[in-house]
């Protein structure tokens, strides 16, 4: 409870995020319609008790699409962010710990990936390998690790000089042991903040890909319904834009606030 008193961002974030997760999990109970099935109604229909968020031009139910969209967004962002963090640690930890040639090589590779425009690279890779769910998750993780790897390395550089690490070394602990048992736990706070930001980035990237028609065609993605909205809003179908936009914004906002909140807790002295 003390944690929540210390950070308003964290409190708001957890309230919003729990609500989103609830809607995502309860999608199957809250609606009996399938997200991608056409022909529930004749063309665009405004919100009504039967269709709480209306339907699109092909009679697809926007409500069920929006709810199942939560699952897609969270699945893609959680899995890809976890993979990103794992790769970042595998690269950043030895680079910072061993230094020297290994560090130079790994950081050159990191700089290289940091300097190419990520979204274009992701688009390019999705086209080459095909827009399936697995490919999108893998591509997002493979091209997102450099930022966090740099953070890991910088933290390791400072932590490996601390006394408790030196003490472990004197006591005869192996490199592997020191890296994973002594250093890694203390690297995690800034990495967790960065992973929350990475997660909101992944949600936006997946939606962006789907918006451009490069999402998995079998998944209900917010990006795709918002691409459908592009035509719908000209013939009065504002509901295809408004409801999915609210859900994606609230989700991304709650994850961004989570990053803020974690930062408040880990760096209580930082300027607020």
């Amino acid at each position, binding site marked *: 409870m003390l944690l929540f008193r210390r950070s308003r961002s964290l409190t708001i974030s957890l309230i919003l995020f729990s609500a989103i997760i609830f809607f995502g999990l309860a999608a199957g109970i809250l609606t009996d319609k399938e997200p991608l099935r056409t022909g529930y109604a004749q063309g665009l229909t405004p919100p009504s008790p039967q269709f709480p968020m209306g339907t699109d031009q092909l009679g697809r139910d926007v409500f069920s699409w929006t709810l199942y969209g939560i699952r897609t967004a969270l699945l893609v962002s959680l899995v890809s962010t976890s993979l990103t963090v794992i790769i970042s640690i595998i690269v950043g930890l030895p680079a910072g710990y061993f230094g020297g040639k290994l560090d130079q090589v790994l950081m050159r590779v990191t*700089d*290289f990936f940091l*300097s*190419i*425009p*990520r*979204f*274009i*690279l992701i*688009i*390019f*890779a999705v*086209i*080459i*390998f*095909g827009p399936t769910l697995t490919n999108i998750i893998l591509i997002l993780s493979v091209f997102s690790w450099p930022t966090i790897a740099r953070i890991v390395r910088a933290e390791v550089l400072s932590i490996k000089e601390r006394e408790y690490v030196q003490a472990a070394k004197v006591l005869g602990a192996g490199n592997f042991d020191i890296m994973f048992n002594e250093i890694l736990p203390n690297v995690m706070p800034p990495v967790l903040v960065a992973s929350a930001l990475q997660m*909101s980035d992944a949600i*936006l*990237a997946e*939606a*962006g890909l789907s*918006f*451009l*028609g*490069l999402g998995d065609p079998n998944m209900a993605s917010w*990006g795709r319904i*918002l*691409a459908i*909205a*592009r035509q719908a*809003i*000209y013939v009065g179908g*504002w509901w295809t*834009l408004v409801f*999915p*936009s609210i859900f*994606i*914004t609230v989700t*991304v*906002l709650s994850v*961004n*606030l989570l990053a*803020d909140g974690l930062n408040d807790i880990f760096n209580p002295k930082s*300027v607020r």
Partner: protein
Amino acid sequence: MVPAVIIFTFLLLKLAPGDPAVLMAGETATKEYIEMIREIYGLNKPLHEQLIIYLGKLFTGDFGYSFTFKRPVLDVILERVPTTLLLAGTGALIAIFFGIVLGVVAALRKDTIADNIISSLTLIFYSIPIFALAQFLILFLVINYRLFPLSGYVTIGVSPSDPIKYAMDVLWHLVLPSISLALIQMATYVKLTRTSMIESLYSNYIIAAKARGLKWRRILFKHALKNALLPIITVAGIQLGLIIGGVVITETIFSWPGVGRLTIEAIEARDFPLLNGIFVLTSVSVIIANIVTDIVYTYVDPRVKLR
């Protein structure tokens, strides 16, 4: 760094499933043309020889031939660069200007309602995907009130022979796309200015300046703000690489005829040489822009030295 980008794209193309010659020629190409591509790029030769041929071609400016535009890739891309620079540049300038203004206001009114409103609003805009934000602007300002043109770069029929009318028309088309781009970037600048402004307002040289009895306005602009703005330069350089995704989407939504829109046209036509060219050229320009940022930084902040 630049050769690394090219080698990387080459390897990516090699990893792609399917015949690279067909990829390079386009799915609708004739058998003869596919064979010609195979011959030109030496696709029957060993990998390292292929790489040398590929590098040689890109370094002499030969990015291949776009089968959708029936013209060399480089010409097609270069033609679109000015429009994209106009959009991305305007967006960045609006974001930086208002970001600094709002950041300074938030820092001076720290922990007041004004500060909270500025911080919350910019965080919300930071969280809205640009394809939602841009469509909301269209819904309210174009569809409901018809204040701005729907899309495009210039009204059909307005010709460059009347330069003032032409420029005004382009500006009018520029408003919505550049505001969309600016709004999603602004949060970064507001937050950065606010944090560094607060830090510098409490630092010793400001206290010393106050003690010397300098005018508050002078302290604020000449001493505090000047130092607080240094990080903006670095971030503006980094933002450039990050905002490219936003530019692609904005140009698509507003049919702005720039490189971003071209990317989508290339995707839709599966025009691989064109896509490859866009990828290599944007990467190279981001790398160059980052080098330029570093150099500018050393001029602005004499404490920093280039290694």
